[in-house]
């Protein structure tokens, strides 16, 4: 791992990842400043206290937050504009940095200069790439055991099957955004109150439908009190049923205790991924990656539970619960 990715103080990258090492170096290492005002160690200054130095989401402040800070090692990011099976765009990560996540400890970094935001985005992708390679190696050891190839062959295999493969997943989205970004059609204009009420009524019906299963987690009235209360995201699922002794053994993987996920209470009108109608459209269409919130819109090779028109009706219904229009 060190040969491929270096250390948190001196990061390194194998050829062909397409990442900008200069930006990564700006974000890595201890906090320092220069006479010209440029800064080093941005990740440690702004992010590491929550996300941890290695991006494992288990920084010193992690247990204070619900949900926990994101563990970048899975390469999964919740709020994106890309379809459910794709990596996010750099602009998605940048948007999260700029807007923060309302109602959580994730701050908005709107006060930072653009070049620092670019450096942080690149470093997050670097940590994610590193983390996914690490997980590949762990899985390889579990699967292959004593048949594990060693030496130069193993290095080549890891480079090809993990590092470059994951890097390709990131690159392909940037190169073909038209293929991976979910378009948001214009919101149908409700000319009168009656039209709006009809759209809301349709949305309510869709929300309660068996196919959509929204009410299962969000509750019949959207109060976040569905029958299925014990829901977990992908970061917590592996911890279910693990004894404290096992947790201790797997300390580096599961440093934080099991945490239940809370379905959104729509009456609050506060949404982690953004509260604009377009944000809500994307959440319903794409889902929230790494959580039980499914992608309900049409996906490549799948019709989806909702059509784009249905999604707008559901958006209108959800907004009506908090008195928004």
């Amino acid at each position, binding site marked *: 791992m060190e040969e491929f990715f270096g250390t948190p103080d001196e990061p390194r990258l194998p050829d062909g990842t397409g990442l900008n090492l200069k930006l990564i170096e700006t974000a890595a290492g*201890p*906090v*320092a*400043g*220069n*006479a*010209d*005002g440029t*800064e080093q*160690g941005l990740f*440690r*200054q*702004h992010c*590491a*206290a929550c996300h*941890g*130095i290695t991006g494992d989401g*288990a*920084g*010193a*402040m*992690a*247990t*204070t*937050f*619900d949900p926990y800070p994101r563990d970048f090692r899975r390469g999964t990011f919740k709020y994106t504009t890309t379809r459910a099976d794709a990596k996010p765009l750099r602009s998605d990560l940048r948007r999260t940095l700029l*807007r*923060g*996540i*309302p*109602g*959580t*400890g*994730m*701050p*908005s*970094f*709107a*006060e*930072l200069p653009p070049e620092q935001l670019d450096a942080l985005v690149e470093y997050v992708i670097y940590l994610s790439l590193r983390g996914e390679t690490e997980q590949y190696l762990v899985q390889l050891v579990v699967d292959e055991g004593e048949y594990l190839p060693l030496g130069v062959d193993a290095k080549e295999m890891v480079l090809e099957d993990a590092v470059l493969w994951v890097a390709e997943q990131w690159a392909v989205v940037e190169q073909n955004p038209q293929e991976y970004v979910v378009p948001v059609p214009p919101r149908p204009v409700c000319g009168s109150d009656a039209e709006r009420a009809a759209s809301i009524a349709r949305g309510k019906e869709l929300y309660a439908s068996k196919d959509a299963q929204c009410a299962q987690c969000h509750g019949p009235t959207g109060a976040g009190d569905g029958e299925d209360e014990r829901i977990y995201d992908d970061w917590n699922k592996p911890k279910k049923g693990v004894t404290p002794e096992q947790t201790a053994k797997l300390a580096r993987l599961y*440093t*934080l205790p099991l945490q239940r996920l809370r379905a959104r*209470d729509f*009456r*609050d*009108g*506060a949404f982690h991924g953004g*509260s604009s109608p377009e944000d809500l459209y994307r959440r319903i269409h794409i889902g929230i990656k790494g959580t039980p919130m499914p992608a309900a819109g049409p996906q490549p090779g799948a019709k989806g539970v909702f059509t784009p028109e249905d999604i707008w009706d559901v958006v209108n219904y959800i907004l009506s619960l908090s008195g928004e229009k």
Partner: protein
Amino acid sequence: MPNRSNSTSPIAIRAAHYAAWLLACATFPLIWMGGLVTTYSAGMAVPDWPRTHGDNMFLYPLGSWLTVWDVFLEHGHRLLGSLVGLVTIALAALLWFRDKRPAMWWLAGVALVGVCLQGVLGGLRVVGSKIFETEIFWTPAPVFLSVAAALLVLTVQAVPAGQSGRRQLRVWLRAAVVSVLFGALAWFGIAAVEDRLFLAKVHGCTAPMFFALAASAVAATSSRWVGDSPPTETPRARRIQCLTSLGAAAIYVQIVLGANLRHVAPDAAPWWFTLWVWLHVIVACGIVLLIVWQYLAARRHAGDQPVLQRRISLMAGLFSLQLALGITTWITNYGWPLWFTQNFVAVEYTVVAESFWQVLSTTAHVGVGSLCLATATSAALWSKRLLIPPSKVLGVEKDGAKKAQATPRKRHRK
């Protein structure tokens, strides 16, 4: 024994009083500036010390200083620190050469050592991280062993010859226990130093103490303190003195906890932050109780001492402000707590890193914390000066006349 207060020239006392005020007034913005340096993580904007980007600190070009915000903060903090150092020297000189009270000589000495120590700590905070991150002889195990072995050898060599076997065994055992204890102490010391943010924490905790020292100098050089105003006889004098001292100590403990909270290492185990937060909240509750208690006690039993009353009231007001700032600091840094938004009001609030309100509340929490300590220290000192148990005045206390001589009334009237 000469009457030291009266033998000190009033002009000298007044000059020292002004110098003490100047010191306190210079130290307070210095603490704010230090708070801003930490809030903006600007400490390493000037990576060398005592020079500034290779230049003499006092000759650093004004243009370079004022154009980069982080450099402005860090270099400004150093310059303001130098000013505080100069004022401390002036105050120390006045107290040493013009004040006849030995306690004030000690205060001057401690202030001078304190300001030097704080300056060096600040410098080491910058350049020391490189020193302390190297393979210092600081690895705990060898230090533990060497200290333990050295103590063991020294102790055993001191055993007189010709002792009985049992007695020698006892000495050996005692030496072993002492060695282990000192070794453990050394181990803890080294472990603390190995904490990369240890110097930042010590630097952050020394500043409020120095500010409290400046406030003490202000109190002890005031005309009311050195004058003949009689203390109030009250049976609750001891209790109020105890409460005010305890209040100052508790506020300092709170400052230490706050420094640990502010300088928690990103690679520390996740439960550390939670631990510091809970301790900070619990001690805050304790301080509220102490302040209410001392406020009521002073109002009831020291009603004729407005100087003390004012300080205790001021502390109550400042601590109320500090509580509000603490809550604001939490919200502007970490958002509204989940229990609050789920059970009371759902607020769609997003924390904004380095926003005006985040910077202001966090830094003000640091500054007002120091002000609370200075006020509490002043209240504790004035309670000792202005209150006295009735039995002391009559000189019939159980401990005899020697204790009575130590009371303020005796001291000032003799």
